[in-house]
């Protein structure tokens, strides 16, 4: 069984799960490693490249964790979007609160 789910139904994807949490963790770590790593590339090239590469690994982990879920959320939501936009227009014109 994979650590993170690859298949989601629309209802399941709407829930907040451990995949969302880990995507945020990997995303934050990737920012730290990419920012510090790239700066160090110009000062201590070997360390800089190594730290940058760790950052790239975190980017990949983030993508692998969250992308299947995001795809499902997006495809499901886009079906409903037209109707929601009509409601937004009604609220704008004070036809609905």
């Amino acid at each position: 069984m994979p650590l993170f789910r690859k298949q989601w139904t629309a209802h399941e994807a709407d829930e907040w799960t451990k995949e969302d949490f880990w995507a945020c963790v990997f995303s934050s770590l990737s920012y730290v490693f990419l920012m510090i790593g790239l700066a160090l590339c110009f000062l201590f090239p070997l360390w800089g490249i190594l730290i940058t590469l760790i950052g790239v690994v975190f980017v990949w982990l983030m993508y692998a964790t969250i992308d299947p879920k995001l795809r499902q959320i997006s495809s499901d939501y886009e079906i409903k979007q037209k109707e929601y936009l009509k409601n937004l227009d009604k609220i704008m014109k004070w036809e609905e609160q």
Partner: protein
Amino acid sequence: MVVFTFWDWLWLILYIVVMVFSGVLFYTLGKRSESDFFLAGRGLPWWLPASSVYATHTATDTPIWMSGVIYQHGLAGIWYSFFAAWCAVSAYVSTRIFRRSLAYSQAEWQTLRFSGLGSELLRGWLAGWQIYMNMMILGWVGMAMGKVCHYAFGWQEWVGLVLFSSICAIYVLAAGYWGVVIADFQQGIVVFLGILIVSVWGVYEAGGPAGIVGRLSEMGQSWRLNPFHFTGWFTGDFPAAWFVTMLFIALLGGIGMGTTLDWYVEAQRIQSARSVRDASYSIWAGTALVLTRNSLWAACILGFFVLNPGIANLDDYEMAWFRVGFEMLPPGMVGFFFAAIVAIHLSTVASILNLGALYATRDLYQHYINPHASERRLVWVGRFSTLLVLLGSFLYGSMMQKNITEWLIFAIWIMAAGVWLPNVLQVIWWRFNSWGYLSSWIANLGLSWLVVWILPKAGVLPQLPDYAQFWLLMALGLVIYVPVTFLTRPDEMDHLVRYYVQSRPLGFWGPIKREAERRGLIRAVTEGV
């Protein structure tokens, strides 16, 4: 004074013509509807809003600010820019929630999240505040451009402020957000190349990596290479307590909406993305570029320090990156460098002009004055509002002659301190209502000025470091808006259920979720957190 050769002028003029022309090219798309003028029809692939996030947050004042903190604190100063990391969390939390709401602006979102009179008051307040803030941001960014032009060409500061913002207004007025986002894409490329070339050149001039490290060691300044060099837990001008506070604000802030000033810019880009997934990746990728850009600047400023140690005046060392470009690049490349500066400047000005106009058009004119206005009229009101924001920025810019960094720090985090937690609570807690949120804003406006300026001047309160001001303002605000929330009625259940079903927010929404399930609007799922 910088002297331009023929090639320098050619680079610059060619660039400005191409950029304005490419923006104006989208005139036909921009004028189609309000949605096109402000959100590019909600149909952009992730990389276009991402390049706009990056280009917008690369402003003329940003290298001034980064030069200041890196020259002062060494590589550890790079953490000052890590506030942008709120997007690491936001990309997968608040971005997703906000994109599903479909609100054009954060002000509009208030009326979707909250109900009744309180929500309308919030919408009007946030719209007015954003118009004011965008004029102010344009003012300080414009003054930074004035400062650069004064340094490079000896022009009076108002010339740089007025000239380049006016050029930018041509394509913003013509094509709205379509012009902004297309120009941002090409400006983003020019800006990244400009920063890369100047920064690599600066490092090379300072002797390369080995030269910089060796010279710093000889000078007894090796601590400048340590990204975690703090002056103590609570002591000195760069304490670890500041670092911890910054991480807390930045990362947890990503759960909320409006926890930083940048949110309001990002909110527009989120809604312009063609899907929830595109919105998430645009915010993540745009900010990744912002942070890696800061790394290039940091290395370059350390090189500048090695060549020019001991500059005591903030106004002088804040210009470090610009000095590297103007003084070290070979003739013929200086024009390219200045073109990159123009790109840096215009990408920010364009976004902020269009954003200010969005709040004026959508949230004030259309919602409160003419709800049945035609699309054609709304586009024209958008253009008129753009012009007003531009003129307002000249006024504010002329009032900010000095202390750009001080203004920035005050605006970025002190002004946001008292509403930081309410900005999170409004996303994660169903019971937090419009009156609680409104009271937090009113309280913060008074408290932030009191804690930062008035009480220390009167001798009532010591001059606290900025991270301590943040915690104090957060605590003082809590005492006001939590009682207000519990003493007033919750928002209407129908309204909350509709918001919940559409946006599926994170956090403490149990009663609303159960009600939505009871009404058969959503299905209960057994797995999940």
